[in-house]
């Protein structure tokens, strides 16, 4: 129990519970199944991206190009839709092609980070601008609406199983798959190891470059899946629709207990982080709190969470550097 209390996931869960209780008094709508399904479905894109971001942050890097990358894939999807037949093979094809495009874009980030060894923040700031610049050039900043979308894709978007929208299943699948990779595969172990202690990981034979390459490519891969989710959710493609979302994604991961210094972070934690941001936003809308205040509150929670983490981190470092001073005799 003491161990459980110490886990950061627990404190996030506690905050979620408290907010839930408060909001359920503020608005009778809040604590309904339908509202929660809406919240989760509406945050599928952020959630999928946050899962990919978790791996990157575990290796003590960051990717600020995720929103631009995802948008680039949605635009590609929009153009592909013009050529795809109106049957179920289109859906299958999109699920093959979109993640592949995303993965290639992510691999480009990975290559610059791991081979040329440019800090990830610089690389992804650069690619953010490249991706979004190209997107605006190609689309002229215009919407692509659903008139060209295959009916099969629109039908796919509306599927519900046991009353739960298909996107939530997709989200769950991504979460489970990534959790499995982290816990049960060698590459997942290597991701954790590099974040935990980069020098030691080289001593035990882990290929640093390959792992960096993997986390950025995997981020791109999930960006592709998030692009499908976004297209499906909005039934349109908005070249500016995701602008700035990378910050929400990173915030969710950090709230979920991942440490910017690397090593710490988990899929359940990130899911809680996403959920926390989502219900706060939902709750404040229900409570009719001004949009500006929503940002202030969200920002404040992030700053507090990260400060708490940073102070803890430094305290641990200090303990490690102590010398065994001889006692007087």
């Amino acid at each position: 129990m003491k161990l459980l209390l110490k886990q950061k996931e627990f404190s996030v869960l506690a905050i979620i519970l408290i907010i839930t209780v408060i909001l359920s008094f503020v608005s009778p709508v809040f604590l309904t199944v339908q509202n929660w399904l809406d919240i989760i479905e509406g945050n599928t894109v952020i959630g999928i991206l946050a899962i990919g971001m978790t791996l990157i942050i575990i290796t003590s890097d960051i990717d600020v190009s995720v929103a631009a990358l995802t948008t680039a894939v949605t635009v590609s999807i929009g153009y592909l839709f013009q050529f795809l037949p109106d049957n179920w093979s289109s859906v299958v094809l999109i699920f093959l092609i979109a993640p592949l495009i995303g993965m290639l874009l992510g691999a480009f980030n990975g290559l610059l980070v791991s081979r040329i060894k440019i800090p990830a923040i610089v690389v992804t700031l650069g690619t953010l601008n490249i991706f979004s610049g190209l997107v605006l050039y190609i689309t002229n900043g215009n919407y692509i609406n659903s008139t060209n979308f295959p009916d099969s894709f629109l039908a796919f978007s509306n599927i519900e199983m046991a009353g739960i929208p298909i996107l939530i299943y997709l989200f769950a699948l991504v979460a489970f798959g990534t959790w499995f990779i982290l816990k049960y595969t060698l590459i997942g172990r290597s991701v954790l190891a590099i974040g935990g202690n980069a020098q030691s990981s080289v001593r035990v034979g882990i290929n640093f470059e390959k792992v960096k390459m993997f986390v950025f490519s995997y981020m791109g891969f999930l960006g592709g899946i998030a692009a499908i989710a976004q297209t499906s959710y909005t039934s349109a493609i908005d070249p500016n629709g995701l602008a700035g979302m990378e910050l929400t994604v990173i915030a969710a991961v950090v709230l979920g207990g991942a440490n910017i210094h690397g090593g710490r972070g988990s899929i359940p934690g990130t899911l809680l982080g996403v959920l926390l941001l989502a219900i706060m936003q939902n709750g404040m809308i229900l409570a009719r709190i001004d949009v500006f205040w929503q940002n202030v509150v969200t920002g404040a929670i992030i700053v507090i969470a990260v400060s708490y983490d940073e102070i803890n981190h430094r305290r641990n470092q200090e303990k490690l550097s102590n010398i065994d001073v001889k006692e007087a005799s």
Partner: protein
Amino acid sequence: MSEYILEMEHISKTFPGVKALDNVELKVQKGEVHALIGENGAGKSTLIKVLAGIHGADEGGKYLFEGEKADIQEPMDATLKGMSIIYQDLSLFPNLSVAENIYIGRDSKKKPWTKINWKSMKKLANKALAELDMDIDLNKKVELLSIAQQQMIEIARALAFDSKLIVMDEPTSSLSSGEVEKLYNVIDKLKERGISVIFISHKLKELFRVSDRFTVLRDGQYVGTYDVNEIDEQGLIKKMVGREVVYETNKEKAETGEKLFEISSFSKEGNFKDIDLTLHRGEILAITGLVGSGRTELAQSIFGITKNVQGEMWLKGEELKISSSEDAVKKGIAYVPEARQTQGLVLEQSVINNMTLPIIDTLRNKLKLIDRNVEKNLTDQYIKSLDVRPAIPELTADKLSGGNQQKVVIGKWLSAQPKLLIIDEPTNGIDIGAKTEIHKLLRRMVNEGIGVIMISSELPEVLSVSDRILVMSRGRIAGEMNTVDADQEEIMKLALDNEGIESGNDTKTPNGTHHQEV
């Protein structure tokens, strides 16, 4: 079949400008505990890094493991062959579980998507821990364990790899005495199983407790290998420091004036305790000791980098309250850190910008802008007086040699006209000619009335430059002497753990003797 598990002969390693190892030999028998000893910088770590495949040795050496040529390209090759190295800073992953830490590395040559079998992983970890009589929850994260337990996890990892040779680099430096005894028992157990251990430590007493043989290195050279029965502590110390004298010991007793700087009962938990120190006008005080004895921490506390220090300080009879390095500079204290490239200089900036950094506030003209002319003149003056070469003020600092960089750092602090200069390892990594120049410079500064405290682990430097020597050991002052009366062996004895020495025959300096006012 040879009786040796490891045979390294004629091993040399040259780094740009430095010969770190020169024709070194290390032969370890099967099932023995072999101690590798030498002063700071003697080449122990470099030798281990060559053994581990982190550094490749120069051509021409012989390196056999189990009688066969050891072809080691990367650290994992050594591990897979049966050599495990337990570094002082440990190679553990704080965020992973005990079981994962023991198992990690086994699959490193397999495909990235290989599935991890938690069951067999736990089984293996359990077996290794059982062999060490350890009872630790396999699911516990390593960051929650004590240092002693973490060390055992490393040993368990070595056992899980079926290692035949385990290298332990300063394994006892952060253990309590009870934990140390447990470690010895484990080492005895390893020995019974025919596993060889290379043990690196500065604590002579414990070396005599665990080791069968000693190999001594000095200044990157092989001194010899000795059986535990044929040598005693005194003998080992002699071997460690018995170098030909490169510098003359400073035989002149300095004309010391009144007290310039004084600290009393300085303590910082986990760093050092009850430090008293006095510096007189016109004298260079050397503080020496092993790395990790608290020397640098002491200097950083005087300079206000380390905070929450207990004790009192006086400079020129005035009590000092320093809570930040900014305070320290204002009161006339300058500190030249050991890592001059990362902490002392802005490498990408010009010599001018570096030199005037501490006094930039005073160089402003009426418009509160920096007066470039004054700045340039001042820099020219220092370049001339310190003989910085090449004498180009606009050159960026990274283009200068180590010795000239150090001169710029010193010049930078001279421009602030300090009353006290603390300089940490002033000639680390500097060639011999430039060393002498820096030493002369320090003497000149003292003659001009600046107090100098020099921290150095190079004994010849300490002896030739200073007037008085303080030896630190494990966060305390272990002894003090006038340089005229000092010799290397005596200093070494104090710097090494003096508990170890006390039990020997020679107890000239009883344990716990504190520095007394001269």
